[in-house]
């Protein structure tokens, strides 16, 4: 009887109709025969028919039931058969994979790398861009509020508002609830053990708005959020684990932050960071902030941000319009620039709103790059599978001859590549975990990654991409292999006497080479940018330059005492053996700057630059020496510049040039500050320096000595240049400073480089990631080239044998093979170079003083690729010389 399915192959069309047709036909036959029987018994045709039908029973009912049952059983059978096929296919694929496990490993690894890179970037992008912060109910209804204002002719969008502004919105109909919050940092503990903690001040409405429930204890209630209420705190989960050892006794304890002590009332759930991504150590009620009485009703303190939950059914546009009206009405009496302000209601993810930072842009680029890597991996895997397909020609030919349908064969081969893909997926998840943690901590170190980069969504993504990769990579090889020529496949032992250079394989190879070029060019451009940025002259010398800030107990010291404390500290620090120079400053470059009223001799108005200013810094003598800021003309401050002596100032050369373009600035007067100030003579011109960013426009900077400005003098930091660098230096400085003043609450010591590094982050990351991916792509492409060429060599042994027999020398054979490989790669380089050229335009804004057309980069990349291709071709090429002509010919 054979295989039910095979004999009924034409009937395999499922469907109630075919089952019904069958049943109808069977019944029809029966009734016909039964009628004929009765006719033979002597009945008339009609009577016979009636009798037959009577015997049968309710024909319609039987017909329907039989058809239904028949259909169901056919379907079940089809499913069982399909499952059986699938199991068989998998077993076949598994056996095949195990037989050549090195090959399997290679493919799985390639897929793991390609998919892993993508999973990593997807995990990061998902966290910062797509998935809302955890523990928020219905996050699509929660919005960030921005205010768009006109300022000096420009439109500025900012999320910072005043407390009265926030209050205006609490009556909005469109908002179900509104909340406000502000990030801050407080000092926990005392002395050398003290540390900075990240705090967020929040209105009591924040937690209910977000819909978050406490992990333990309680969250804020409205009674906590009034001036004068007992100060309470909610701990962030990670902070609680770290500082309180995850003990539930923490609730009810006091925590000492800054001038106040707070009672801990609750612990936030794991990974909860409010609406931002940065970690939060402690949540405090908004009105527990020290200056609450000052900012409560003041329209000048822009220090909080606001979020709102839309009422269900309200469109963001409608809400924005209402909020704008309320905002303007509330500010009707205030200053000009706010009067025409408008409110923007934006999605909760800061990365997709206005003012998204650079890091997000870089992350998006990296996602694009990882897709390129995946394509390369795909092409490589496809090539490897094609090669394997040729190896298995005989086996495939036999199967086809035995009657396996082509479709079935393709399915089997695809199952095989799917199996590889699943193995690769496991590796990819591991890579995503490691890579995600790495990239996350490098690209956005402030973000709370405690929930890990690999979430459920990332796992689903990984599996899906791996499956797609497996299918995509396996499709062409599967269809090609199954198209095998039966006769030749069976005849020639699997290696093929007829040489047919696979155009497909060559095409894949060229694609790999081209994409590698694109990545490497990107890498090169970023590396050059990074190099250029790193070598920007900051004006001052950042090497071995530390910034120390001293923080006393709030309220413990008045200004005079603070000045004296800093001067004592300066004395001590200067006497340390490893210190070259030190100076106290009013504003720390890269941290803050100040500007005051200024008039200049001979000028009606002060020239302005787009960078603002002019910016003043007050410092002790030794500033220029400590910072290594050259005095171009004139002199720096000295200890002679005290009250009573002629007032002196040093200005930057840009300021000198802009204020007095045709005159010498030395000797000119500056009139600094409020009511009719005296003349401050310019005694020196210093070289320019960066004020707060590595890349910024020209700045107007000037300096005055602390001794001559006692009223404005407010020390903020001590600059120290040491003879050498290192952790020991840092802790020695710190200890010494602590020892200098017993009432010190907290001391920070940082290399100035720590403040500069964030500015370089995007280039550094771009350079690192592009290079990493580029090298990866190169390796993959090289391996691909090597495998294709080895294959060709093995295939064409006969041809090689003939050539050798005809007198070709070893070197000419080697040259022949290498030339082949190089030719493919050269085409790829040309294509890739063109692609990089076109795509490079889009990347230009991310580069620094490097044109996307930079010829050196392209040249180096091309040379590298050619060198690698020669190397990759060499090994298979060497093999040709070992082919004995007679042996090769005999194999046929």
């Amino acid at each position, binding site marked *: 009887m054979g295989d039910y399915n095979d004999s009924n192959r034409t009937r395999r069309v499922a469907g109630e109709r075919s089952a019904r047709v069958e049943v109808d036909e069977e019944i029809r*036959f029966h009734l016909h025969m039964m009628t004929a029987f009765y006719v033979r018994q002597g009945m008339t045709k009609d009577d016979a028919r009636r009798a037959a039908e009577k015997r049968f029973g309710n024909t319609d009912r039987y017909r329907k039931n039989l058809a239904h049952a028949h259909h169901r*059983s056919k379907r079940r059978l089809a499913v069982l058969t399909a499952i059986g096929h699938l199991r068989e296919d998998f077993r076949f694929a598994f056996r095949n994979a195990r037989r050549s496990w090195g090959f399997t490993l290679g493919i799985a690894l390639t897929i793991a790398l390609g998919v892993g890179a993508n999973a990593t970037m997807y995990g990061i992008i998902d966290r910062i861009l797509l998935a809302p912060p955890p523990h928020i109910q219905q996050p699509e209804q929660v919005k960030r509020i921005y205010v768009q204002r006109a300022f000096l002719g420009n439109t500025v969008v900012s999320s910072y508002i005043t407390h009265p502004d926030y209050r205006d919105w609490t009556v909005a109909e469109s908002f179900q609830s509104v909340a406000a919050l502000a990030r801050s940092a407080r000092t926990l503990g005392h002395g050398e053990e003290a540390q900075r903690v990240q705090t967020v001040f929040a209105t009591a409405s924040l937690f209910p708005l977000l819909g978050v429930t406490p992990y333990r204890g309680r969250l804020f209630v409205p009674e906590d959020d009034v001036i004068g209420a007992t100060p309470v705190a909610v701990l962030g989960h990670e902070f609680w684990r770290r500082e309180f050892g995850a003990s539930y006794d923490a609730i009810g304890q006091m925590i000492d932050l800054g001038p106040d002590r707070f009672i801990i009332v609750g612990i936030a759930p794991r990974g909860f960071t409010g609406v931002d991504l940065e970690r939060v150590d402690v949540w405090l009620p908004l009105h527990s902030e020290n200056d609450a009485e000052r900012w409560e009703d003041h329209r000048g303190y822009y220090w909080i941000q606001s979020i709102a939950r839309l009422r269900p059914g309200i469109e963001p546009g409608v809400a924005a319009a209402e909020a704008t009206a309320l905002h303007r009405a509330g500010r009707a009496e205030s200053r000009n620039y706010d009067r025409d302000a408008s409110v923007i209601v934006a999605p909760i993810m800061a990365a997709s709103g206005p003012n998204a930072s650079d890091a997000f842009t870089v992350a998006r680029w990296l996602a694009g790059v990882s897709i390129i890597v995946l394509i390369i991996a795909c092409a490589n895997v496809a090539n490897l599978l094609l090669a394997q397909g040729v190896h298995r020609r005989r086996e495939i030919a036999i199967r086809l001859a035995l009657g396996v349908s082509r479709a079935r064969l393709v399915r089997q081969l695809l199952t095989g590549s799917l199996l590889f893909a699943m193995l690769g997926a496991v590796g990819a998840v591991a890579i995503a975990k490691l890579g995600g943690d790495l990239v996350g901590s490098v690209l956005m170190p402030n973000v709370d990654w405690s929930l890990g980069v690999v979430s459920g969504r990332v796992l689903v993504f990984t599996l899906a991409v791996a499956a797609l990769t497996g299918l995509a990579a396996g499709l062409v090889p599967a269809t090609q292999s199954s198209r095998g020529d039966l006769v030749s496949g069976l005849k020639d032992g699997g290696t093929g006497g007829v040489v047919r250079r696979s155009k497909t394989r060559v095409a894949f190879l060229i694609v790999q080479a081209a994409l590698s070029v694109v990545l490497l060019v990107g890498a090169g451009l970023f590396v050059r940018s990074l190099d250029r940025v790193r070598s920007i002259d900051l004006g001052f010398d950042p090497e071995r330059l530390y910034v120390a800030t001293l923080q006393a107990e709030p309220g413990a010291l008045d200004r005079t005492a603070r000045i004296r404390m800093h001067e004592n500290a300066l004395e001590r620090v200067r006497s340390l053996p490893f210190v070259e120079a030190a100076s106290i400053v009013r504003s720390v470059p890269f941290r803050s700057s100040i500007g005051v009223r200024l008039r200049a001799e001979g000028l009606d108005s002060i020239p302005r630059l787009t960078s603002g200013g002019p910016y003043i810094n007050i410092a002790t003598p030794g500033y220029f020496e400590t910072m290594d800021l050259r005095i171009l003309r004139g002199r720096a401050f000295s200890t002679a510049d005290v009250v009573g002596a002629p007032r002196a100032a040093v200005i930057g050369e840009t300021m000198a040039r802009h204020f007095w373009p045709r005159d010498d600035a030395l000797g000119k007067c500056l009139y600094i500050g409020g009511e009719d100030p005296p003349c401050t003579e310019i005694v020196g011109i210093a070289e320019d320096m960066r004020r707060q960013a590595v890349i910024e426009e020209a700045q107007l900077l000037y300096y005055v000595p602390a001794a001559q400005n006692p009223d404005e003098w407010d020390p903020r930091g001590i600059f120290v240049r040491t003879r050498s660098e290192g952790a020991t230096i840092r802790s020695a400085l710190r200890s010494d400073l602590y020892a200098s003043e017993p009432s010190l609450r907290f001391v920070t010591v940082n290399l100035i480089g720590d403040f500069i590094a964030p500015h370089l982050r995007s280039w550094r990351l771009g350079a690192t990631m592009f290079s990493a991916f580029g090298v990866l792509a190169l390796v993959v492409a090289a391996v691909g080239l090597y495998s294709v060429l080895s294959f060709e060599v093995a295939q064409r042994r006969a041809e090689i044998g003939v050539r050798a027999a005809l007198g070709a020398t070893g070197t000419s054979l080697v040259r022949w093979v290498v030339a082949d490989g190089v030719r493919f790669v050269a085409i790829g380089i040309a294509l890739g170079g063109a692609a990089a050229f076109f795509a490079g335009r889009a990347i230009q804004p991310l580069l620094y003083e490097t044109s996307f057309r930079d010829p050196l980069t392209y040249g180096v990349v091309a040379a590298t690729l050619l060198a690698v291709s020669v190397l990759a071709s060499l090994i298979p090429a060497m093999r040709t010389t070992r082919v004995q002509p007679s042996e090769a010919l005999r194999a046929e």
Partner: protein
Amino acid sequence: MPQSDDLNLLRGTLDLLILKAVAHGPRHGYGVVRWIAEQTEDELQIEDGALYTALHRLERRGLLSSKWGMSAAQRRAKFYTMTAKGRRQLEKSESTWNRYAAAVSNVLTAKPE
């Protein structure tokens, strides 16, 4: 309508009869109906439709397999054949039936004490 116990007994018996019908070679549905009618001298009083239901059920259980072919009169008909599983079931049912019949027979022919 027969009582439900009788129906079960009938079903079981019917299955046995059908298996026997095809034990010696494939038959189409009508052939099975005719054979049973002849063998039981049409005593069974069962609707033909019910026989077909039984045939399909046996096929679903894997005791029969079917194949479309040509009848003696060159018409398309569905032929049923016994599978190996069906053969085993038949043997088992036959032996059970025989034991049952023997037991009953013993009871019925028992001499009074």
